[in-house]
């Protein structure tokens, strides 16, 4: 039996989502069509939009369905830059620990990108926010970090943006269904969501965005979703997303303390082995536990746990399957070694105490073996000669 502790990568499909999709797959019709079949599809799509809007505490008219969190982020970052270029605010600011969907979109802007520094917990500095340059049009700070689980100070971020006349976006892919997450109360201008992190299907997400938000259109075509996003909306996926979001938000009051208890058990057990540190500071998602294991390669820890039937993540991007040093850990100033020696465990709706206990049973031996496999001498491979 495998123990799945990688819900932040993708969480198993919830029954509510499966049922909603099974019903929707039977439908014929494009929601943009004007005939009876089209109207039925449109009706189901709007049901999903309303259900999702309720789950995230937004107006249905603010929900733009996308193919996932990455597309939602792209619509904002690229749309913000294109709008700003025409309106004297060409720059886009983002925290140093953003998901690649935001980070790389900002990098692609070249000199127009502004990096907001973080502290050693990976939390955005107040000072960085207080000094937003005047030509910044939009800023983006994620709600919950996808690697460390650190919760960002969204209230302070929005406040700073308001003062500077900057529009505020947050990638809340790891937040909805895991921490309390209200679009209206947050006063954000835009929020990115993904279905499969909370038990919905892969391939659908949403940008929740104020109706007057200044974004240029960067996705051209039929303009199906408020002209901001083109392409036929997959009704069944949207229905599955909304059902999963509604269920996970409804359960949150019960799940959050349950996850917090499991996470504490994880923290205690993992750090019972020396040289293991938990990252992310005091305020993290109850569903994410990110540790640095001194003297190991994260790759080796993953391989050994994999062989023991436990799924976890090295938490950062891969290039052709090669684990890269974590940009998030580097931005936290924890050093190159920690950036290649950190693993993430993440919990979800199916996680049980047995999963956590299986990990903890394997942990001491896994750490010892992984330490034996990382050269003790400074690995010539770890420092690039050129």
């Amino acid at each position, binding site marked *: 039996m495998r123990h799945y502790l990688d819900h932040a990568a993708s969480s198993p499909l919830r029954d509510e989502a499966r049922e909603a999709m099974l019903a929707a797959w039977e439908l014929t019709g494009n929601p943009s069509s004007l005939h009876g079949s089209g109207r039925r599809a449109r009706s189901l799509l709007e049901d999903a939009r309303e259900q999702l809007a309720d789950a995230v505490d937004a107006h249905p008219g603010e929900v733009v369905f996308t193919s996932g969190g990455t597309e939602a982020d792209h619509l904002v970052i690229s749309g913000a830059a294109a709008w700003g270029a025409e309106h004297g605010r060409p720059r886009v600011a983002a925290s140093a620990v953003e998901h690649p969907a935001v980070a790389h979109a900002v990098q692609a802007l070249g000199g127009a990108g502004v990096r907001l520094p973080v502290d050693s917990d990976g939390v955005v500095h107040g000072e960085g926010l207080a000094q937003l340059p005047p030509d910044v049009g939009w800023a983006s700070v994620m709600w919950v970090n996808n690697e460390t689980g650190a919760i960002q100070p969204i209230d302070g971020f929005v406040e700073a943006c308001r003062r500077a006349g900057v529009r505020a976006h947050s990638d809340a892919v790891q937040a909805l269904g895991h921490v309390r997450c209200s679009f209206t109360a947050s006063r954000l201008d835009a929020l990115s969501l993904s279905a499969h992190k909370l038990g919905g299907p892969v391939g659908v997400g949403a940008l929740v965005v104020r109706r007057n938000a200044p974004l240029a259109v960067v996705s051209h075509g039929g303009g199906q979703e408020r002209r901001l996003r083109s392409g036929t909306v997959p009704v069944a996926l949207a229905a599955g997303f909304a059902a999963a979001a509604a269920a996970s938000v409804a359960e949150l009051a019960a799940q959050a303390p349950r996850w917090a208890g499991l996470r504490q058990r994880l923290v205690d057990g993992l750090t019972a082995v020396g040289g293991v540190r938990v990252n992310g500071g005091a305020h993290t998602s109850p569903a994410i536990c990110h540790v640095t294991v001194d003297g190991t390669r994260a*790759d*080796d820890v993953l*391989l*050994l746990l*994999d*062989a023991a039937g436990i799924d976890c993540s090295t938490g950062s991007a891969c290039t*052709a*399957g*090669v*684990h890269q040093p974590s940009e998030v850990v580097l931005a936290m100033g924890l050093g190159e070694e920690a950036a290649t020696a950190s693993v993430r465990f993440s919990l979800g709706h199916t996680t049980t105490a047995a999963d956590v206990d299986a990990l903890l049973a394997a942990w001491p031996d896994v750490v010892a*073996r*992984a330490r*034996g*496999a990382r*050269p003790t001498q400074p*690995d*010539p*491979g*770890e*420092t*690039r*000669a050129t």
Partner: protein
Amino acid sequence: MKVLVAMSGGVDSSVAAARLVADGHEVTGVHLALNRNPELYRSGSRGCCSLEDSHDARRVADTLGIPFYVWDFSDRFHDDVVTNFVAEYAAGRTPNPCLRCNEKIKFAAVLERGVALGFDAVATGHYARLERSGDEALLHRAADAAKDQSYVLGVLTQEQLRRSLFPLYGTVKADVRAEAEALGLRVASKPDSHDICFISDGDTAGFLTRALGERPGAIVDTEGAVVGEHAGTHRFTVGQRRGLRLGVPAIDGQPRYVLAIEPVTNTVTVGPHAGLAVTEIAGIRPTWAVADPRYGTWRGLLQVRAHGAPLPATIEADAAGVRITLDEPAFGIAPGQAAVTYDGDLVVGASTIAGAA
């Protein structure tokens, strides 16, 4: 056994992995990422460490139902193999990077990491036969003489060989392809790689010139008379005949060959084919594939390049080095090449050629 298979994405290591699975071993596949910029290296010909090869290896692992990972050894590879390759050419020698990779990466860094992680052995798709005799693992030539790769493994020590597996030892290449086909592996018809994996366009001279720059100098004959110019000694190897572009024809009208490369004076010496004849070879930094160093004087065979012929010789070895006297003169033996000694089909040891006369 728990076996780690180095899967290049080629047909040989794929079939090696398949055989280990069929034999009931607990098999894990690793693809070694050796190039720092894999996407930059691929053009017409095949490099052994490109993105597509990693993908091919992964698909084979999927078919076999084994865990698969990519291990990044690009920095180690750069430092231990590529840098050494360039430095050896700069010093006027002719290195073999595949041998170096086996010595420093596959059967060293990878093997050590695998053993530390709990694996009993590392397997590759090399064609060579390991015979276990008591505690000793004896390395022999493969059954397929045309594919035999014992030479590039000749630098391995007992400690490394004891933890190695070469499942293809007794098979000819055509059968390996047929076996891959029967297993439904898409790599069955993938072409063999022949080039140096980090020089995917096959232009070694161009690669070295990019690394070392142009260093123009003189080409001289055995009397010291200047007969041409060159753009850098690293563009030459002992025994080379092509690309000399000599301005002065030889008096005897016979083709001329590179006889010596002297990087200090930046001189390439050319002469007639007879000038390449060598019977005495000095090898340094000896390693032993057999358990006990074969010191003293003994009769054996010498091989100096990957697909070279075995040459009968008298070998005299001690801890400092190896002196080899060939029965018949050999031609085109360059400093830097590995001298691998055999006793029949058994690999005895290897050393690096320091000089030949």
